[in-house]
């Protein structure tokens, strides 16, 4: 009746954020290079949807209200390098932020951060 606690733990933790990312993983048969959008959605990568709405992308499924929606990015970040820097280490701008330091803590590679920056910049 009871399944392995470790498995269940993993499943339930993942379940909390996974719905969208899973859909993507299954669609993708071949191990293609993930796009910026996929990296942003995937809860094991950027997981931006945990905290940000993305009203510019109809595929973004989230009800979050933790952080400002990612919208009008070109207007908010005339300097794209500043946007990238925010993703690389959000604690620089605000030491108390809950946004994970994706570059500094090696959560994402430099290339992955570039792709996400490009994707978000188009929002």
């Amino acid at each position: 009746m009871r399944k392995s606690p470790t498995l269940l733990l993993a499943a339930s933790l993942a379940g909390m954020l996974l719905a969208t990312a899973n859909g993507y993983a299954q669609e993708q048969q071949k191990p293609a290079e993930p796009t910026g959008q996929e990296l942003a959605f995937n809860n094991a990568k950027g997981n931006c949807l945990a905290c940000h709405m993305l009203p510019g992308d109809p595929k973004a499924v989230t009800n979050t209200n933790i952080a400002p929606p990612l919208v009008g990015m070109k207007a908010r970040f005339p300097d794209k390098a500043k946007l990238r820097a925010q993703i690389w280490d959000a604690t620089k701008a605000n030491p108390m932020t809950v946004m994970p330091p994706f570059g500094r803590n090696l959560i994402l590679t430099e290339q992955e951060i570039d792709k996400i920056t490009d994707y978000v910049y188009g929002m």
Partner: protein
Amino acid sequence: MKKTLLAILGASLLFGAISANATPEQDRKELLDYFKHKSPNVKFDDYVNGAFIYNADALNQYNSIMEFPPFYTVVDQGKKMWETPFKNGKTYASCFPDGAKNIAGRYPYFDEGLGKVVTFEMALNSCRKANGEDELAYDDMGTMGVLTSYARTLSDGMRMNVRVEGAKAVAAYEKGKQHFYSRRGQLNFSCASCHVHQAGNIIRTEYLSPVLGQTTHWPVFRGGETLFTLQKRYEGCNKLVRAVPYKSGSEEYNDLEYFHSYLSNGLPMKASVFRK
């Protein structure tokens, strides 16, 4: 030591909720004020409902599931374990005052003799040992978990009443507090990030529960069937931020549970409950 203070000070700047050098009672009151201010419409006793207080639909679902809990057979199994005599003929009830009624809300407590925090699970194991039985594995949901799913119901309605008295007890409490407010893991979160500062907000699709009331209703049955003890949940939340979890029953988690439980003082207990 210095580092600890700084970490806690840093956290208190952000959360405005807890400061260094406060007494446990000051900590609790400050958090109470913080949550009163944050959600003026939530009644104190309702904090035992965790994340459901922020979502009427989920609370309705909770209430209807609790009318006929799908996990009652497991709790029943726990009752059998509780009532089955040890080889010497004695029972768990003999180890506690009043047959262990209205006792769980006093745990964890600081045992001066042992010099450490004692959780309810540890007390159950001491009882077994005193009666010549092997101890149960602290993190075994199928034995310890099932046993507590019934044993804790004997304290339903009791108000949490954890005491922190004496220098050594305060030191253990402070260690738990430090765990709670320290950022950890690759994702760089503290417990407080999610359960104080972001409590009531939605992380992707899940409401985050407030720290008040988080220790009153264990174990929980997630999805209505998977038994989780409180410390198993700590492991889960540590993993969520990609931190290496401690073991259930470790001193680190016992101290965390001590601090964490103190904050729920005054809230009514209810075991065992449904969680998503």
